[in-house]
Protein backbone atom coordinates (compact mmCIF):
# COMPACT_ATOMS: atom_id res chain seq x y z
CA UNK A 1 0.00 0.00 0.00
CA UNK A 2 2.74 2.41 1.03
CA UNK A 3 4.88 1.22 -1.90
CA UNK A 4 2.15 1.93 -4.45
CA UNK A 5 1.47 5.32 -2.86
CA UNK A 6 5.18 6.14 -3.25
CA UNK A 7 5.13 5.21 -6.93
CA UNK A 8 1.98 7.23 -7.56
CA UNK A 9 3.55 10.20 -5.79
CA UNK A 10 6.72 9.95 -7.89
CA UNK A 11 4.57 9.86 -11.02
CA UNK A 12 2.64 12.93 -9.87
CA UNK A 13 5.94 14.75 -9.21
CA UNK A 14 6.77 14.57 -12.90
CA UNK A 15 3.79 16.87 -13.69
CA UNK A 16 6.10 19.71 -12.72
CA UNK A 17 8.15 19.02 -15.83
CA UNK A 18 5.39 20.60 -17.95
CA UNK A 19 6.38 23.99 -16.56
CA UNK A 20 10.07 23.38 -17.22
CA UNK A 21 9.29 22.38 -20.80
CA UNK A 22 7.27 25.55 -21.39
CA UNK A 23 10.08 27.59 -19.82
CA UNK A 24 12.86 26.11 -21.98
CA UNK A 25 10.68 26.58 -25.05
CA UNK A 26 10.11 30.24 -24.15
CA UNK A 27 13.85 30.83 -23.63
CA UNK A 28 14.82 29.46 -27.03
CA UNK A 29 11.83 31.05 -28.78
CA UNK A 30 13.03 34.40 -27.45
CA UNK A 31 16.51 33.64 -28.80
CA UNK A 32 15.16 32.84 -32.28
CA UNK A 33 12.95 35.95 -32.23
CA UNK A 34 15.68 38.33 -31.20
CA UNK A 35 18.28 36.81 -33.54
CA UNK A 36 15.85 37.30 -36.42
CA UNK A 37 15.41 40.94 -35.41
CA UNK A 38 19.08 41.72 -34.82
CA UNK A 39 21.51 39.01 -36.05
CA UNK A 40 24.59 41.06 -35.10
CA UNK A 41 24.29 40.42 -31.32
CA UNK A 42 23.81 36.66 -31.66
CA UNK A 43 26.93 35.68 -29.68
CA UNK A 44 25.99 37.87 -26.72
CA UNK A 45 22.40 36.64 -26.73
CA UNK A 46 23.52 33.02 -26.87
CA UNK A 47 25.43 33.24 -23.59
CA UNK A 48 22.36 34.77 -21.91
CA UNK A 49 20.25 32.00 -23.41
CA UNK A 50 22.50 29.27 -22.03
CA UNK A 51 22.26 30.90 -18.59
CA UNK A 52 18.46 31.12 -18.84
CA UNK A 53 18.26 27.54 -20.08
CA UNK A 54 20.32 26.27 -17.16
CA UNK A 55 18.26 28.22 -14.62
CA UNK A 56 15.01 26.89 -16.12
CA UNK A 57 16.28 23.33 -16.36
CA UNK A 58 17.25 23.40 -12.69
CA UNK A 59 13.63 24.10 -11.77
CA UNK A 60 12.62 20.97 -13.68
CA UNK A 61 15.31 18.99 -11.89
CA UNK A 62 13.80 19.93 -8.52
CA UNK A 63 10.80 17.83 -9.61
CA UNK A 64 13.21 14.97 -10.32
CA UNK A 65 14.72 15.36 -6.86
CA UNK A 66 11.24 15.16 -5.31
CA UNK A 67 10.52 11.99 -7.31
CA UNK A 68 13.75 10.42 -6.03
CA UNK A 69 13.00 11.43 -2.46
CA UNK A 70 9.57 9.84 -2.73
CA UNK A 71 10.85 6.65 -4.37
CA UNK A 72 13.97 5.90 -2.37
CA UNK A 73 13.33 7.23 1.13
Amino acid at each position, binding site marked *: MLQSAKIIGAGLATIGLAGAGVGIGTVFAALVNSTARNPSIKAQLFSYT*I*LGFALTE*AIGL*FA*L*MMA*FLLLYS
Partner: protein
Amino acid sequence: MTTFINTVFINNPLEQFEIKEFFYMGGPLLGAKFSLTNIGLYLIIVTILVLGMSYLSLNNNKVVPSRWSIVQESLFGSILNMIKSTIGGKGEAYLPFLYTIFLYVLLSNLIGLVPYSFTPSSHFVFGIGFSVAILIGVTILGFQTHALKFFGLFVPAGTPLGLVPVLVMIETISYLARALSLGLRLTANMIGGHVLLKIFSTFTWKAVIGGPILLLISIIPFAFIIAFTGLEIAIAFIQAYVFTMLTASYLNDAINLH
Protein backbone atom coordinates in the same frame (compact mmCIF):
# COMPACT_ATOMS: atom_id res chain seq x y z
CA MET B 1 25.33 -17.26 -19.46
CA THR B 2 22.17 -16.50 -17.48
CA THR B 3 24.14 -16.19 -14.25
CA PHE B 4 26.49 -13.76 -16.00
CA ILE B 5 23.54 -11.66 -17.14
CA ASN B 6 22.03 -11.66 -13.68
CA THR B 7 25.22 -10.57 -11.96
CA VAL B 8 26.11 -7.82 -14.45
CA PHE B 9 22.58 -6.49 -14.55
CA ILE B 10 22.10 -3.32 -12.51
CA ASN B 11 18.66 -3.08 -10.97
CA ASN B 12 18.86 0.27 -9.26
CA PRO B 13 19.93 3.24 -11.42
CA LEU B 14 21.20 5.04 -8.29
CA GLU B 15 23.66 2.24 -7.53
CA GLN B 16 26.40 4.03 -9.50
CA PHE B 17 26.49 6.86 -6.95
CA GLU B 18 27.23 4.59 -3.98
CA ILE B 19 30.27 5.57 -1.94
CA LYS B 20 32.59 2.63 -1.30
CA GLU B 21 35.46 2.58 1.15
CA PHE B 22 38.79 1.33 -0.21
CA PHE B 23 40.88 1.32 2.94
CA TYR B 24 41.04 3.15 6.21
CA MET B 25 43.54 3.83 8.90
CA GLY B 26 42.91 4.97 12.39
CA GLY B 27 43.12 3.88 15.93
CA PRO B 28 43.58 5.01 19.49
CA LEU B 29 46.64 7.08 18.61
CA LEU B 30 45.12 9.09 15.79
CA GLY B 31 41.74 9.36 17.45
CA ALA B 32 39.89 9.73 14.16
CA LYS B 33 39.29 7.46 11.21
CA PHE B 34 40.93 8.43 7.93
CA SER B 35 39.55 6.55 4.99
CA LEU B 36 39.96 6.64 1.23
CA THR B 37 36.61 6.29 -0.54
CA ASN B 38 35.91 6.33 -4.25
CA ILE B 39 34.78 9.99 -4.15
CA GLY B 40 38.03 10.89 -2.41
CA LEU B 41 40.06 8.97 -4.98
CA TYR B 42 38.28 10.69 -7.87
CA LEU B 43 38.71 14.14 -6.32
CA ILE B 44 42.45 13.40 -6.04
CA ILE B 45 42.49 12.31 -9.71
CA VAL B 46 40.73 15.53 -10.75
CA THR B 47 43.22 17.61 -8.76
CA ILE B 48 46.12 15.81 -10.45
CA LEU B 49 44.50 16.39 -13.85
CA VAL B 50 44.05 20.13 -13.21
CA LEU B 51 47.63 20.48 -11.99
CA GLY B 52 48.96 18.32 -14.83
CA MET B 53 47.09 20.32 -17.47
CA SER B 54 48.47 23.56 -16.09
CA TYR B 55 51.98 22.10 -15.86
CA LEU B 56 51.91 20.79 -19.45
CA SER B 57 50.69 24.13 -20.77
CA LEU B 58 53.67 25.92 -19.24
CA ASN B 59 55.72 24.33 -22.07
CA ASN B 60 59.04 24.78 -20.20
CA ASN B 61 58.52 28.57 -20.21
CA LYS B 62 59.13 28.76 -23.97
CA VAL B 63 57.81 31.78 -25.84
CA VAL B 64 56.30 29.73 -28.68
CA PRO B 65 53.15 28.06 -27.29
CA SER B 66 52.47 24.35 -27.66
CA ARG B 67 49.00 22.89 -28.28
CA TRP B 68 48.43 22.55 -24.53
CA SER B 69 49.21 26.23 -24.02
CA ILE B 70 46.79 27.29 -26.74
CA VAL B 71 43.95 25.30 -25.12
CA GLN B 72 44.76 26.80 -21.74
CA GLU B 73 45.02 30.32 -23.14
CA SER B 74 41.71 30.17 -24.97
CA LEU B 75 39.97 28.91 -21.82
CA PHE B 76 41.69 31.68 -19.87
CA GLY B 77 40.56 34.28 -22.42
CA SER B 78 36.93 33.18 -22.39
CA ILE B 79 36.76 33.25 -18.58
CA LEU B 80 38.39 36.71 -18.60
CA ASN B 81 35.80 37.96 -21.11
CA MET B 82 33.00 36.59 -18.95
CA ILE B 83 34.39 38.39 -15.88
CA LYS B 84 34.75 41.66 -17.79
CA SER B 85 31.14 41.51 -18.97
CA THR B 86 29.65 40.55 -15.57
CA ILE B 87 31.83 42.28 -12.94
CA GLY B 88 33.86 44.83 -14.87
CA GLY B 89 37.42 45.99 -14.37
CA LYS B 90 37.44 45.46 -10.60
CA GLY B 91 36.72 41.77 -11.00
CA GLU B 92 39.92 40.85 -12.77
CA ALA B 93 41.54 40.17 -9.39
CA TYR B 94 39.20 37.18 -9.03
CA LEU B 95 40.22 35.59 -12.34
CA PRO B 96 42.40 32.84 -10.77
CA PHE B 97 39.61 31.89 -8.36
CA LEU B 98 36.92 31.67 -11.04
CA TYR B 99 39.26 29.93 -13.47
CA THR B 100 40.13 27.26 -10.92
CA ILE B 101 36.46 26.71 -10.10
CA PHE B 102 35.63 26.35 -13.80
CA LEU B 103 38.40 23.85 -14.47
CA TYR B 104 37.71 21.81 -11.34
CA VAL B 105 33.95 21.56 -11.88
CA LEU B 106 34.40 20.85 -15.60
CA LEU B 107 36.90 18.03 -15.05
CA SER B 108 34.85 16.46 -12.26
CA ASN B 109 31.80 16.51 -14.56
CA LEU B 110 33.73 15.04 -17.48
CA ILE B 111 35.50 12.31 -15.51
CA GLY B 112 32.12 10.82 -14.67
CA LEU B 113 31.42 10.23 -18.37
CA VAL B 114 34.26 7.69 -18.60
CA PRO B 115 32.52 4.27 -18.55
CA TYR B 116 32.52 2.46 -15.18
CA SER B 117 33.85 5.52 -13.38
CA PHE B 118 32.37 7.54 -10.57
CA THR B 119 31.09 11.12 -10.77
CA PRO B 120 32.35 13.25 -7.87
CA SER B 121 30.03 16.13 -8.80
CA SER B 122 26.94 13.91 -8.42
CA HIS B 123 27.14 14.20 -4.64
CA PHE B 124 25.54 17.00 -2.69
CA VAL B 125 28.63 17.30 -0.53
CA PHE B 126 30.52 18.47 -3.64
CA GLY B 127 28.06 21.01 -5.03
CA ILE B 128 26.57 22.40 -1.85
CA GLY B 129 29.95 22.41 -0.10
CA PHE B 130 31.28 24.56 -2.91
CA SER B 131 28.29 26.92 -3.02
CA VAL B 132 28.04 27.45 0.76
CA ALA B 133 31.76 28.26 0.88
CA ILE B 134 31.34 30.69 -2.04
CA LEU B 135 28.36 32.42 -0.39
CA ILE B 136 30.20 32.83 2.94
CA GLY B 137 33.25 34.22 1.13
CA VAL B 138 31.18 36.62 -0.98
CA THR B 139 29.32 37.91 2.09
CA ILE B 140 32.60 38.53 3.94
CA LEU B 141 33.95 40.32 0.86
CA GLY B 142 30.83 42.51 0.65
CA PHE B 143 31.06 43.56 4.31
CA GLN B 144 34.78 44.21 3.93
CA THR B 145 34.37 46.53 0.93
CA HIS B 146 31.12 48.31 1.82
CA ALA B 147 30.78 47.86 5.62
CA LEU B 148 27.14 48.47 6.62
CA LYS B 149 26.22 49.81 3.19
CA PHE B 150 26.22 46.17 2.09
CA PHE B 151 22.69 45.91 3.52
CA GLY B 152 21.63 48.18 0.65
CA LEU B 153 21.73 45.00 -1.43
CA PHE B 154 18.51 43.89 0.27
CA VAL B 155 16.53 47.02 -0.65
CA PRO B 156 16.04 47.54 -4.41
CA ALA B 157 16.30 51.14 -5.57
CA GLY B 158 13.07 53.15 -5.67
CA THR B 159 11.06 51.02 -3.24
CA PRO B 160 8.13 52.76 -1.43
CA LEU B 161 8.71 52.90 2.34
CA GLY B 162 5.72 50.71 3.16
CA LEU B 163 7.04 47.83 1.10
CA VAL B 164 10.55 47.90 2.61
CA PRO B 165 10.04 45.34 5.46
CA VAL B 166 8.42 42.79 3.14
CA LEU B 167 11.01 43.27 0.40
CA VAL B 168 13.92 43.00 2.83
CA MET B 169 12.56 39.66 4.04
CA ILE B 170 12.11 38.35 0.50
CA GLU B 171 15.53 39.57 -0.64
CA THR B 172 17.26 38.07 2.41
CA ILE B 173 15.65 34.70 1.80
CA SER B 174 16.53 34.77 -1.88
CA TYR B 175 20.11 35.77 -1.01
CA LEU B 176 20.47 32.86 1.40
CA ALA B 177 18.77 30.43 -1.02
CA ARG B 178 21.64 31.01 -3.44
CA ALA B 179 23.83 28.85 -1.22
CA LEU B 180 21.51 25.92 -1.83
CA SER B 181 20.40 26.51 -5.40
CA LEU B 182 23.87 26.97 -6.89
CA GLY B 183 25.08 23.56 -5.72
CA LEU B 184 21.73 21.83 -6.16
CA ARG B 185 21.60 22.85 -9.83
CA LEU B 186 24.96 21.27 -10.63
CA THR B 187 24.33 18.11 -8.61
CA ALA B 188 20.78 17.54 -9.82
CA ASN B 189 21.90 17.95 -13.43
CA MET B 190 24.63 15.38 -13.00
CA ILE B 191 22.38 12.88 -11.16
CA GLY B 192 19.61 13.36 -13.71
CA GLY B 193 21.86 12.80 -16.71
CA HIS B 194 23.57 9.71 -15.35
CA VAL B 195 20.30 8.12 -14.20
CA LEU B 196 18.81 8.78 -17.64
CA LEU B 197 21.74 7.03 -19.33
CA LYS B 198 21.50 4.09 -16.92
CA ILE B 199 17.74 3.65 -17.40
CA PHE B 200 18.14 3.80 -21.17
CA SER B 201 20.94 1.25 -21.20
CA THR B 202 18.87 -1.10 -18.99
CA PHE B 203 16.04 -0.78 -21.49
CA THR B 204 18.39 -1.49 -24.41
CA TRP B 205 19.92 -4.50 -22.65
CA LYS B 206 16.46 -5.98 -22.08
CA ALA B 207 15.73 -5.54 -25.79
CA VAL B 208 19.08 -7.12 -26.77
CA ILE B 209 18.49 -10.32 -24.74
CA GLY B 210 14.80 -10.46 -25.70
CA GLY B 211 15.07 -12.20 -29.06
CA PRO B 212 16.17 -11.75 -32.68
CA ILE B 213 13.44 -9.24 -33.65
CA LEU B 214 13.97 -7.13 -30.54
CA LEU B 215 17.71 -7.28 -31.19
CA LEU B 216 17.16 -5.53 -34.53
CA ILE B 217 14.84 -2.95 -32.97
CA SER B 218 17.37 -2.26 -30.20
CA ILE B 219 19.47 -0.25 -32.66
CA ILE B 220 17.07 2.67 -32.14
CA PRO B 221 17.53 3.01 -28.33
CA PHE B 222 21.24 2.40 -28.83
CA ALA B 223 21.40 5.42 -31.14
CA PHE B 224 19.54 7.38 -28.46
CA ILE B 225 22.16 6.37 -25.86
CA ILE B 226 24.93 7.73 -28.10
CA ALA B 227 22.99 10.96 -28.65
CA PHE B 228 22.36 11.35 -24.90
CA THR B 229 26.06 10.77 -24.18
CA GLY B 230 26.84 13.67 -26.53
CA LEU B 231 24.21 15.75 -24.74
CA GLU B 232 25.79 14.84 -21.39
CA ILE B 233 29.19 16.09 -22.58
CA ALA B 234 27.54 19.37 -23.62
CA ILE B 235 25.75 19.60 -20.26
CA ALA B 236 29.05 19.04 -18.41
CA PHE B 237 30.46 22.11 -20.18
CA ILE B 238 27.28 24.19 -19.79
CA GLN B 239 26.93 23.45 -16.08
CA ALA B 240 30.58 24.28 -15.37
CA TYR B 241 30.13 27.55 -17.31
CA VAL B 242 26.88 28.42 -15.53
CA PHE B 243 28.41 27.64 -12.13
CA THR B 244 31.31 29.99 -12.88
CA MET B 245 29.03 32.67 -14.33
CA LEU B 246 26.70 32.65 -11.31
CA THR B 247 29.68 32.80 -8.95
CA ALA B 248 30.88 35.82 -10.94
CA SER B 249 27.46 37.50 -10.67
CA TYR B 250 27.38 36.90 -6.88
CA LEU B 251 30.85 38.47 -6.70
CA ASN B 252 29.46 41.36 -8.74
CA ASP B 253 26.69 41.91 -6.16
CA ALA B 254 29.30 42.06 -3.40
CA ILE B 255 31.72 44.34 -5.28
CA ASN B 256 29.41 46.74 -7.11
CA LEU B 257 26.17 46.53 -5.03
CA HIS B 258 23.84 46.06 -8.06
